């Protein structure tokens, strides 16, 4: 390499995104899904993964027509792969290919790590229920352990159980891509993949890896997943058109709609990307993490934790949230909201954004693509980050659909119902987890 191309220290500490991929309820490739987001399409439909007809919630955003095998070098290596890992493998292959890492001749796999925010795998409900009921001692109101295990060993399957461990997507991706560097999985509920990208960014900045595959994958569209959220009364139980059920920021929002899928991104030091001639899609500028330390069931009412995460990310990015440039343009041009469509989240997130940006807040468009693909839970932050990068690329903001009845108490610009052209250079993406863990990542046009 010629001397003038030697990286400067700042290039080693700057982190760029060089590849992206997703498997979502709106499709399985970057451009199709993006086109549908800009068109305001909904991926929400009746659940057919199991018979949910009598459940309080009967619809979700399912990934349909997906075949992981076409993304794998040798599918037999991943025999029995769970849905969680399968989504991750497809998304990661797209990201890896876009980043051109297979053609990176001397890629040092010990300098390639992973930080995922993957959820737990799908509970193998039928055999599980069968073992539990076989062991049930109605008189004593307990499960008899001996009877339970006898049935369990008969009906449960080894691979289906192992695949439920939340670190299995890491294992599959490490095997598929030969990754040997530091690998982590975090599971901070709905904040997981934003946190994962923030920590991956921090690991590269510190020099502990050149490349980090990061993102999330999750599905909770299974019997006990829907049950759990229905019991919490967090899910929309609308009985109308499923495509209208996810209504972030609308006055008549009635809870979130479950989605599933995966978003994966390749994060890389700028120096490494330059040295191998990779094209940066955007630069990661800042990351903030906080805890509400309030209640496991409720968000801190003033949005203290959410604001703290945003403020920390902006501070690291060197952006003054209250400042505007000579043309009156704020320092952040798009906020990808957590925007779940629950009464509580959307009100408090709005309050937190106002708390951070003050008078500038109404001038920053903020939308929720959960209105179209549902809430991907642990994977939500990763697909939302990809949408941010594409918003910068195309100068287009994805809308919040179903915003039919503005809530007088929510007075920010939620990009209602239709995509909008807009010059976007800096984006902020929020994810807030059940229990109070909050994460924000800020990116910029490269």
């Amino acid at each position, binding site marked *: 390499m010629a001397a003038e191309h030697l990286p400067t220290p700042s290039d080693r500490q700057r982190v760029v995104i060089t590849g992206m991929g997703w498997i979502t309820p709106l499709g399985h490739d970057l451009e199709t899904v993006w086109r549908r987001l800009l068109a305001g399409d909904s991926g929400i439909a009746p659940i057919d993964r199991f018979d949910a007809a009598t459940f309080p919630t009967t619809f979700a955003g399912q990934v349909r027509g997906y075949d992981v095998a076409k993304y794998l070098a040798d599918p037999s290596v991943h025999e029995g792969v769970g849905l969680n890992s399968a989504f991750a493998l497809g998304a990661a292959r797209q990201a890896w290919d876009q980043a051109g890492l297979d053609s990176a001749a001397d890629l040092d796999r010990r300098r390639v790590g992973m930080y995922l925010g993957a959820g737990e795998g799908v509970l193998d409900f039928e055999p599980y229920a069968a073992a539990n009921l076989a062991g049930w001692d109605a008189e004593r109101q307990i499960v008899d352990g001996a009877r339970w295990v006898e049935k369990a060993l008969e009906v449960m399957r080894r691979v289906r159980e192992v695949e439920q461990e939340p670190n299995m997507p890491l294992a599959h991706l490490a095997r598929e891509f030969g990754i040997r560097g530091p690998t982590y999985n975090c599971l901070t509920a709905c904040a997981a993949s934003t946190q994962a990208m923030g920590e991956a960014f921090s690991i590269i900045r510190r*020099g502990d890896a050149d490349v980090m595959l990061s993102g999330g994958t999750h599905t909770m569209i299974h019997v006990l997943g829907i049950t759990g959220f229905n019991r919490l009364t967090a899910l929309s139980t609308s009985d109308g058109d499923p495509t209208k059920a996810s209504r972030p920021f609308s006055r008549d929002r009635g809870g979130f709609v479950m989605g599933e899928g995966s978003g994966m991104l390749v994060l890389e030091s700028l120096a490494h990307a330059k040295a191998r001639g990779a094209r940066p899609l955007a630069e990661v500028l800042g990351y903030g993490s906080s805890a509400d330390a309030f209640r496991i069931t409720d968000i801190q009412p003033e949005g203290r934790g959410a604001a703290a995460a945003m403020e920390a990310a902006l501070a690291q990015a060197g952006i003054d949230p209250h400042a505007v440039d000579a043309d009156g343009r704020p320092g952040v041009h798009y906020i990808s909201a957590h925007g779940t469509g629950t009464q509580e989240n959307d009100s408090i997130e709005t309050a937190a954004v106002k708390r951070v940006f003050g008078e500038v807040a109404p001038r920053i468009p903020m939308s929720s693509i959960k209105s179209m693909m549902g809430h991907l839970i642990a994977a939500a932050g990763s697909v939302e980050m990809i949408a941010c990068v594409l918003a910068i690329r195309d100068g287009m903001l994805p809308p919040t659909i179903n915003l039919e009845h503005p809530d007088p108490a929510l007075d920010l610009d939620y990009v209602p119902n239709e995509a909008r052209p807009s010059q976007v250079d800096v984006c902020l993406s929020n994810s807030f987890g059940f229990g*109070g863990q909050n994460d924000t990542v800020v990116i910029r046009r490269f």
Partner: protein
Amino acid sequence: MSGHRRVYISGVGPITTFGVGMAPLWSALLEGRCGIAPITRFDASGFGCPFAAEVSAEVFTPRDWVPKSYRKAAKVMSRDIELAVGAAAAAIAEAGLSTRGTDPDATPTLPPARVGCHIGAGLIAADVDELTAALASSVDEDGVFSLAGWGATGMQNLTPLWMLKYLPNMLACHVTIIHDCQGPSNTITCAEASGVLSIGESMRVIERGDADCCLSGGAESKLNPMGMLRQQFADRLAAVSGEIDPASIVRPFSSDAAGTVVGEGGGILVLEAEDTLAARAGRPIAELAGFGAAHAACADGSGLEMDPAGEEVASAIARALDDARTDPSEIDAVVPYGSGIPAVDAVERAGLERIFGDRLPTLPIVTVVPNLGSCAAGAGAIGLAVAAKCLAEQHLPARLNASAGVPDGLDAAAAPARPADLRAVLSLSVGMGGQIAAAVMRRVP
């Protein structure tokens, strides 16, 4: 990189079969006691290994460790959460910190926004009695479970907050709420590597100035039918039959090692920046000097068949040594995972051989799994707590190992406790799935 803040351990809160805090654990380790016994929590007679190291009600009453003002929340704590809450209280007490949880009326020692929390967790199994009581309400006349009945009415028999008991991030969430930790918070779920990965992340968070203090570690209990079954399916548990001395079951690094035993437990460590610890006149137990991680090459997609060459174990250790700006010669003892699972032992051993070479045969290996079982996501924090205690006491615990066949070339056979000159101790974790984490702790002058 220069200019890092040094990070110290100022409190350790292990929770194990021996009880809450370091005192009961340390005396058990010095005496070489074993807490493994036949399982009493449920009828485990049908499992291949009906033995475990339980944290019994005699040594741990969860309610006693939850502040009065937060007792209502105790009913939404799964076992794993209870263990984390107990461990955090013990660690904070040892560190001498005042928090909202120790005294709601006092000014906290540290500003809440400067305190982070990173607690590793596992896949938490639902309480089988509670869930099945609800499932049983949706069985039709023929004794068959009815999904239609479950959706329509059966699920109403689960308490509304049912799912919140089982989200892995709830360990950290309850601890942050009790002690008012508003700084960065994460939940790492990488099986046995979770604890050391969490403590390594806390170290980075403090180094880069995002917090001054972190409560960090992990906790888990696989002492339930589902947890045990998954371990059995993954071929990790020793097959035990007939009368057996429980202290003989786990035989780490032995040629006749035959698997591990489930333990309940975990640990929370208090990590603090050198400057803020000094400012509050706190006392360091040991320095957390270095951290490193890597991913094992595996033959299969699930990461169960690790390459026995141990190259990535060595890579994680080398990173931790580099980070501590030292080399293998400063390490005077190793606390590995040491599970007694032959394939995992082999990977650890191979990695240690790559790093320590000719010195390995005389390097003391501290094993605790024969005493307190394999505590899964809690294991790494227990290992680091023990490493810190060894450094503080300049003493090595006794070692249990019933095998006559401890392989040559490794100081891992049964041995009594002894004083030792320990400058630095290496801690190692290998997670089921392939994550490897290493940390170096140094004694404080």
